């Protein structure tokens, strides 16, 4: 009997400003992680989906990253609003570890303008127990200092929630740098840094 079950597709948002493709190895790495730890059917390759196109509505999980200042176009704002209102999950990671937090300041402004206010996500949120257990909340990375230009390690992720569900998950942890390596490199690491990505995707698929 042929299965008609759909697979999880890792989609990366392409937006017109900034550098949306700053972490090109992340999709393959996360796909590898999902296949390795879970039995969730996952597409072997990710897709790139323009933020301002109707195609955005084909992928309920979308990853967005970058270093540079972000300014969405009107069409990108309209589509992002529709995406979130209909139940999509946008995972935004600040790839920035340079000065002044340019991505952070502009991306937060755009998200709050388009979708709603970002609030700190409690570290005992179900996200941190969705698959692996992260007792202290979001795992830190070796890159996150000064991600916002304030020389602090931030203890919380931020989120826009709607009806008790996360619509937008915002990270300043620079997971884009932490996960931007070839999947085969994982075997050299004592602790797989991409494990938290499993939690994010499992949470998006189940809550």
């Amino acid at each position, binding site marked *: 009997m042929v299965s008609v079950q*759909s697979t999880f597709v890792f989609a990366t948002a392409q937006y017109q400003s900034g550098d949306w493709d700053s972490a090109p190895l992340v999709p393959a790495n996360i796909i590898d992680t999902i296949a390795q730890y879970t039995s969730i059917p996952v597409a072997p390759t990710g897709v790139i989906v323009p933020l301002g196109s109707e195609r955005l509505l084909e992928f309920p999980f979308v990853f967005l990253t970058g270093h540079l200042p972000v300014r969405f176009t009107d069409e990108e704002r309209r589509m992002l609003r529709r995406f979130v209102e*209909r139940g999509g999950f946008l995972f935004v990671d600040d790839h920035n570890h340079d000065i002044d937090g340019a991505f952070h300041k502009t991306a937060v402004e755009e998200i709050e303008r388009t979708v709603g206010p970002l609030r700190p996500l409690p570290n005992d949120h179900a996200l941190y127990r969705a698959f692996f257990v992260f007792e202290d909340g979001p795992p830190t990375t070796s890159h996150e200092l000064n991600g916002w230009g304030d020389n602090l390690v931030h203890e919380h992720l931020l989120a826009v929630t709607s009806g008790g569900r996360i619509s937008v998950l915002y990270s300043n942890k620079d997971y884009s740098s932490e996960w931007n390596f070839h999947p085969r490199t994982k075997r050299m690491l004592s602790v797989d840094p991409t494990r938290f990505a499993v939690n994010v995707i499992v949470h998006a698929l189940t809550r």
Partner: protein
Amino acid sequence: MPSPADVVARPRVNAARRALELALRLLAIVALAIALWRELVPAEPGAVTRVATAGDSTSVRAVLGTWSADPDVSAAHLSLRDAPDAITRDWLRALRGAGAQVGWDAPLPAPAAITAEPLPDVLPRVRIAATTASPVMLADGVGVVDSLPAGGGAVIGASVEGVVSARPAADSVRAPVMATRVHDSLLVRRVLVLGMAGWEARFIVAALEEAGWLVDARLAVAPDVAVVQGSVRPDTARHAAVVVVDSSAAPHATAIARYVRMGGGLVLLPEALTLAPFRALAAGARGSALRAEPGRLASEEPRHGLALVPVASPRPDARVLEARDGAVAVAARRVGAGRVVQVGYVDSWRWRLAGRDDAVAAHRAWWSALVSGVAYAPARAIYVPDPWRPLDDAPAARLIAALGTPSPAPASAAAPAVPGHPGVRWLLFAIAVGALLAEWASRRLRGAP
């Protein structure tokens, strides 16, 4: 001293007065005898017939009041404008039970009936079905709640308790033509969703929760790892229905089959039919997948934009609920005390995400209705207002059941028959009393005892 003429004339006068007194006495006796005869001898059937034309129930009752007080009425015929209400109908039936022949005719409205039942849904919703020839307005004790098209039915998304009545939409001042009693009396429990972690299961849970259902779920993530919400053991004491998304529900298949036979509801998606226990419950077999029709998600028929695994070879006891281009998309059947619905659509979440502006609400309502259609919802006792109030849920049918089919008005009885007039009894009484008084006065005036 009386004159000789007086002596000769007085006996003649007295004889005449005695004859008159005798005549008056006989007249009184005859009048009393006639009255007695009229009381003791029943009137011949059809001898006294009443015919009336009455528009509404109030005027019908006025006519019935007159007829009921007249024992001479042996036949009655009403020309009605509408079917009378329940009280008037019972009155006519009682008149017939008392021996009168009761006939009726009316330009009878098209057969009309109304019924209402609560839906096993999380929101207080009432399904109202009515057969009417013209649109009607529905009202409860508070006011107008909805309208029905001619010959239509409706689901009212509100708590309606008490009496729901229908009146012609074109005539707002007219009395209700039919009414029924409705109340929310179902105990609606949780829904259990079983499947792999994936968009379909996730958006089914979201849609049901947004619709107000409390949802338990087990979404498998890896072998022996699942995201669990609530209790995942199917139980009619906790769950109204179970939604099986795919084969990850295999460990629960036997329990689910038992749950359904005990009355539980089950929604099966195409991937669930890869398991034999669910194939045994399903409405039909799993057909060959049909592709989604490009560009249809945002159309008026959004489910044409979904891939479809049709319900093939539906069982004889299955009922097709939805079809697409000749293929059965949704079908249901009863299994034991429970109900099973088999859904052929694949990835319905695509409709929610890429559909028209109302797609989220439509997707939510569709899923809620699917679950509602099979949900196990035992009745619970509640307060019923005015339980003694007779209601007319099918006025024309009940009129015919009570009085038989309509008949033409009797032409010969167009006017009331004189012998049947109730004043005759009083006239006879007055004659008898008057005659006796006159006879007594005559005797006393002439000095007789």
